[in-house]
């Protein structure tokens, strides 16, 4: 018996999105009080990293749902309601993360904050925090009836529920194949951009004569591919969770994705890379990071394509 299992991981990580959003929003507000751009950058970096960390929180939640639904002493209604709220909160935490990435990318290029960021993050941060706190409190109902808020707080909510997403994907024969197609197109775009940028850092051939700043322009195309793949990937996972949560390569894939995601932030914001002029050689450490980034994306592709073959969950 391993000393920690996947549902247990959900309990370890489930406070990260809520607490992280509080920290991100707090740093963001503090950056105005202290008039510090460094703090503002840091708050956006926190928002991006929280978006990244929320993915394993959501996925381990699915595994926890699979493990305890139907057992004595747990409220299935509370589990379903928690999933619905968590899905909505997850959607907003991801939107906040993507917008934060875009702001960081723009900061890097313009060297000054764009006017739209202040109202955007105030709004996104507060909405995300409210939704996340709501999802968390309903989650608490699952095992802790002593803190019961009220029956109405648990009732199914609105049209954006896990059941409706599952219905959307499985009721029509073309949604799954169409999403798979988009997932592969997104993969190509993402991999193409990041392969080129990392090849520059490795100093491959004539690419050393390219300034890093000019390749930085391409990063949003890679991010677009990542966005398409996050949305289509979540459709698969919510519609057929059993194919993924009981599948070992799926966890390899998510592990590689976390490494690659942190790397994406590194490529976007770090001064050392931005300063690379035509002909400059990247530092050894940056080359090692570039190689690990390519390795992580290859790992994502390998584990993803191997999902039906290594595990027997399909």
């Amino acid at each position, binding site marked *: 018996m391993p000393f920690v299992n996947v549902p247990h991981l959900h309990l370890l990580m489930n406070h990260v999105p809520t607490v992280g959003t509080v920290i991100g929003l707090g740093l963001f507000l503090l950056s105005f009080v202290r008039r510090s751009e460094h703090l503002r950058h840091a708050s956006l970096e926190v928002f991006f990293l929280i978006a990244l960390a929320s993915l394993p929180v959501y996925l381990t939640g699915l595994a926890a749902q699979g493990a305890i639904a139907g057992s004595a002493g747990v409220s299935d209604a509370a589990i379903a309601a928690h999933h619905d709220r968590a899905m909505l909160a997850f959607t907003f935490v991801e939107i906040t993360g993507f917008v934060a990435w875009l702001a960081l990318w723009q900061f890097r290029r313009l060297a000054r904050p764009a006017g739209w960021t202040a109202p955007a993050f105030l709004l996104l941060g507060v909405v995300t925090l409210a939704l996340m706190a709501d999802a968390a409190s309903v989650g608490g109902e699952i095992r802790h009836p002593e803190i019961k808020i009220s029956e109405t707080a648990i009732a199914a909510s609105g049209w954006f529920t896990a059941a409706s997403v599952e219905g959307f994907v499985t009721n029509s024969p073309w949604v*799954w*194949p169409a999403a*798979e*197609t988009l997932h*592969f*197109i997104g*993969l*190509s*775009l*993402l*991999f*193409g*951009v990041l*392969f*080129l940028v990392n*090849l520059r850092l490795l100093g*491959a*051939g*004539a*690419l*050393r*004569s*390219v300034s890093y700043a*000019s*390749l*930085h*322009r*391409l990063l949003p*195309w890679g991010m677009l591919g990542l966005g398409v793949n996050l949305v289509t990937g979540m459709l698969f996972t919510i519609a057929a969770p059993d194919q993924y949560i009981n599948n070992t390569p799926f966890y390899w894939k998510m592990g590689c994705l976390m490494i690659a995601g942190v790397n994406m932030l590194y490529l976007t914001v770090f001064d050392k890379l931005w300063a690379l002029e*035509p002909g400059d050689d990247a530092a050894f450490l940056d080359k090692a990071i570039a190689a690990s980034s390519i390795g992580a994306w*290859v790992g994502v*592709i*390998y584990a993803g*394509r*191997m999902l*039906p*073959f*290594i595990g027997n969950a399909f």
Partner: protein
Amino acid sequence: MWLEGSALATWVREAPTILAFATILTLHTFGMGVLVGASAVLSLRLLGVGGNVPLVPLRILFRVVWGGFWINLVTGTLLFTADATTRGVQPLYFIKLFFVAIGVVSVILIERHVYGGNTDPPVVSATAKRLAFLSLVAWVVAITAGRLLAYVR
């Protein structure tokens, strides 16, 4: 059909090892990412929406494209032999091959148009832009057709 019954095809299809069908299919996916990814980045640059990356050093991308192409020609051929009687009569399969051919030819023509002349630095002509657009469309259609092969009978 003799091809599908050959020892190689049987191995690809039926060998009880992860190194046969599954690994070949995964290599095919990886080759797709390399080939289409590099080709797409090049096309985006030529269309003017991929920033101002200098064109001369980007020529290295053709080597990346060809690397992906050869991986996929070999793995694609192996996957075809394993399933020849099904694929050989599937219109969708030939649609895919047709658009792969258009994609490959457009990449060759792009290299000729952009890098073939004596202009230094290379200039992006209207023809090069049209070819870049054609190549993007061809890859999207090829991936769509290829992916749908798994779902359409």
